[in-house]
């Protein structure tokens, strides 16, 4: 059956007009990927600017306002464009292939979703123009964000509205696709864990984004129209913003990490040459994390004056979420146990992501305990924590996914040597960068400052971080070069270079325009993970 599929026109031979007006999920996926990656690099350059400034105490090269601007936009870009946006790329390209569909349920809506994301990107770029900066951090807490000194709040509000609208369109589309368009034989308990990852992600987006959309709409009205949502003098409440903000933004961290778990599961089972250990518990754990994720948000607000019983309650639920997370890590280890593990580049990235997530998660649990968190809240310890989970676990998983599906997407193999080199550079650079953040945070360095007192130990720790940051940046560059070089001069990729059992590998590389000309028939005991059976 595979031979019968006739490649007419791989995606990259399309004309410019076909790109701009495309409704093909593969092209849209690639457009998402490129946009995400470009903004990842922009956000990364801003981070390097901040690290250069922090190399020594005092003001060096970056003024306080510019520093605040860099930090605000760095946060927004890395979270909304990179850690969330990149999964839009994977979801678009892979969902229809993995469920055996020709496209998503609403291809034109999918295109509009991308252009809305693009519109948000234009607004993000407008903040580069002097006079239009936003400087109140990615969280945008009032009352500061409603103050003209904090920059152009309107642009901040529309960044959230537009990325949010794009995500809701995507969520509706992908959920409908997965619910209604699976090929016969692919059910809830035998579909790819990546599909569970992105579906739970999309459900969270659907339920959470409206909350942040409401919060920033109120912020806009307060700032420009003079309403009183966050004005205590007239009955408003600034803590309301924090509640609405975190009601989305805590679940949002699972938006970033659940698809990463999915990618890790695909890669680990393929390269351990075993079906995923405890598949059903993996599925249940993903959905449990998504659900409990909505019940922990006040762990970001332990010092905001919320009642004690709320602190205690959400401290419990925060620790509770460690259980399904632990199940996942246990099952990955179980999958590796007695597997015939092959250490190709994607596998290195996936294993790195698991280990770094372990550190990130283990620093998160004490943060969920008010007794500890009140001491380190808004310190570099928190910065270290979320860079372990985002800067490393999510980023490594995304790069692992790039290398893993690159042959399928481009039809070419990447260079293994360069890929492995990029992994080792990134993992060394990241740890040199992020581990000192935990230490300097514990010793009292607050986050979000462009300066710090002349304390010998702090200077050393900051200088180590800056060195690590440049090593990391070099590693990312190597990774991108490895991928681009593969595309230009790599060997031709076979349909299934990794001998995976999953449906997307049964198509030629790159997949033909229609994916499956006939709805694919999968074997009776279809299991997407594990050693190739067909």
């Amino acid at each position: 059956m595979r031979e019968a599929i006739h490649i007419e026109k791989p995606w990259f031979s399309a004309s410019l007009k076909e790109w701009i007006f495309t409704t093909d999920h593969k092209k849209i996926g690639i457009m998402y990927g490129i946009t995400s990656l470009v903004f990842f690099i922009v956000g990364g350059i801003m981070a390097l600017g901040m690290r250069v400034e922090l190399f020594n105490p005092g003001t060096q090269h970056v003024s306080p306002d510019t520093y605040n601007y860099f930090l605000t936009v760095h946060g927004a870009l890395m979270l909304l464009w990179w850690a969330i946006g990149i999964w839009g790329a994977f979801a678009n390209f892979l969902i229809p292939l993995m469920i055996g569909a020709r496209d998503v349920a609403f291809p034109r809506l999918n295109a509009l979703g991308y252009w809305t994301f693009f519109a948000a990107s234009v607004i993000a770029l407008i903040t580069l123009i002097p006079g239009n900066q936003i400087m109140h951090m990615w969280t945008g807490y009032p009352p500061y964000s409603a103050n003209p000194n904090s920059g152009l709040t309107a642009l901040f509000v529309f960044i959230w509205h537009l990325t949010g609208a794009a995500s809701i369109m995507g969520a509706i589309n992908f959920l409908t696709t997965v619910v209604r368009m699976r090929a016969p034989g692919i059910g809830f308990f035998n579909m790819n864990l990546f599909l569970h990852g992105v579906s739970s992600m999309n459900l969270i987006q659907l339920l959470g984004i409206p909350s942040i959309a409401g919060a920033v709409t109120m912020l806009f009205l307060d700032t420009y129209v003079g309403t009183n949502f966050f004005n205590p003098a007239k009955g408003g409440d600034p803590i309301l913003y924090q509640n609405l903000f975190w009601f989305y933004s805590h679940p949002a961290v699972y938006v970033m990490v659940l698809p990463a778990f999915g990618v890790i599961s695909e890669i680990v089972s393929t390269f351990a040459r075993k079906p995923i250990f405890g598949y059903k518990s993996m599925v249940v754990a993903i959905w449990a994390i998504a659900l409990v994720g909505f019940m922990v948000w006040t762990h970001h607000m332990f010092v905001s004056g919320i009642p004690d019983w709320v602190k205690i309650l959400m401290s419990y639920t925060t620790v509770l979420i460690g259980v399904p997370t632990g199940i996942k890590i246990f099952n990955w280890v179980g999958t590796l146990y007695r597997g015939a593990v092959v250490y190709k580049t994607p596998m290195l990235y996936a294993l790195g992501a698991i280990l770094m997530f372990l550190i990130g998660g283990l620093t998160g649990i004490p943060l969920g305990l008010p007794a500890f968190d009140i001491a380190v809240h808004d310190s570099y310890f928190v910065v270290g924590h979320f860079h372990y989970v985002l800067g490393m676990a999510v980023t490594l998983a995304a790069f692992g996914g790039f290398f893993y599906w690159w042959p399928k997407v481009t039809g070419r193999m990447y260079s293994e040597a360069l890929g492995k080199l990029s992994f080792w550079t990134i993992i060394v650079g990241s740890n040199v960068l992020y581990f000192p953040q935990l230490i300097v945070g514990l010793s009292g360095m607050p986050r979000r400052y462009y300066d710090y007192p002349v304390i010998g130990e702090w200077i050393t720790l900051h200088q180590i971080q800056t060195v690590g940051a440049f090593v990391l940046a070099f590693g990312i560059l190597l990774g991108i070069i490895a991928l681009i070089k593969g595309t230009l001069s790599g060997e031709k990729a076979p349909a299934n270079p990794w001998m995976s059992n999953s449906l997307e590998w049964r198509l030629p590389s790159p997949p033909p325009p229609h994916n499956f000309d006939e709805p694919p028939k999968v074997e009776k005991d279809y299991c997407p993970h594990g050693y190739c059976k067909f």
Partner: protein
Amino acid sequence: MAHEVAHHGEHEVSIWPLPVGVGVLLIPLAITAFFAWKAPLAALLAGGVGLALIIVGATGWAYEFFTKGHDEGHGWIAIFFFIISEIIIFGTMFVAFWMARVNHAEVWVNSWIPEGLSLSIPAFLTLVLWASSFTIWRAEVALEQGSRSKATTYILITMALGILFTVMHVSEWVHLWHQGFTLMSNMYGTGFYALTGIHTSHVIVGLILQAYALMFILSGKMNEKKMTMFSATVAYWHFVDIMWLLVASTAYVVGGLHI
């Protein structure tokens, strides 16, 4: 193979999402221009062009769907997901309103409730909207049975009721505003206009959707075989009507009673 070539050109491009997307960019820019850049002329220009692009794009989009697309019946599930997220948007405003009502009950009752607030207007508005829920349901049944002219009549009645609702509501706002009860006065004013304002904006979106549906029913493109889009419009309208009960009881009853 020849078949596939034709197929390819037909399915994988559409020129309509892009203009809508550009409109989606221009509208926020227009709002920013008006409020933050203080450039009302630029705001008018960007807003006008943006709106025109969205209208043209959405019309072309629907036309393309009705001439070339297949109705696979996924629409109802999409509108279901969309309504869920809408409920949460309303929820944020309810939370703001209720929190202020509970935490500042005393000043609220003693000094924030305007004199001119009467319960008879929202009661009448409720009747209007609920009658429109009934008529749009009749329109759906008529269309299912293939009776386009009957469906058209019912949609027109629904739209008339929706417009009546909007006009009455706006005049109510003007009345209260002139009494000194504004968005800025206090949290009651803020919550009152925010809740009812967001609700009315949904009524207007519902009316626009109905106008689209009417256009395609009149031209015969929307019929009993291709009516998922209309069913979605109907579901959305029911949602707006049910939501009105919560909005009105919060904004007028919970907010306006002296307890």
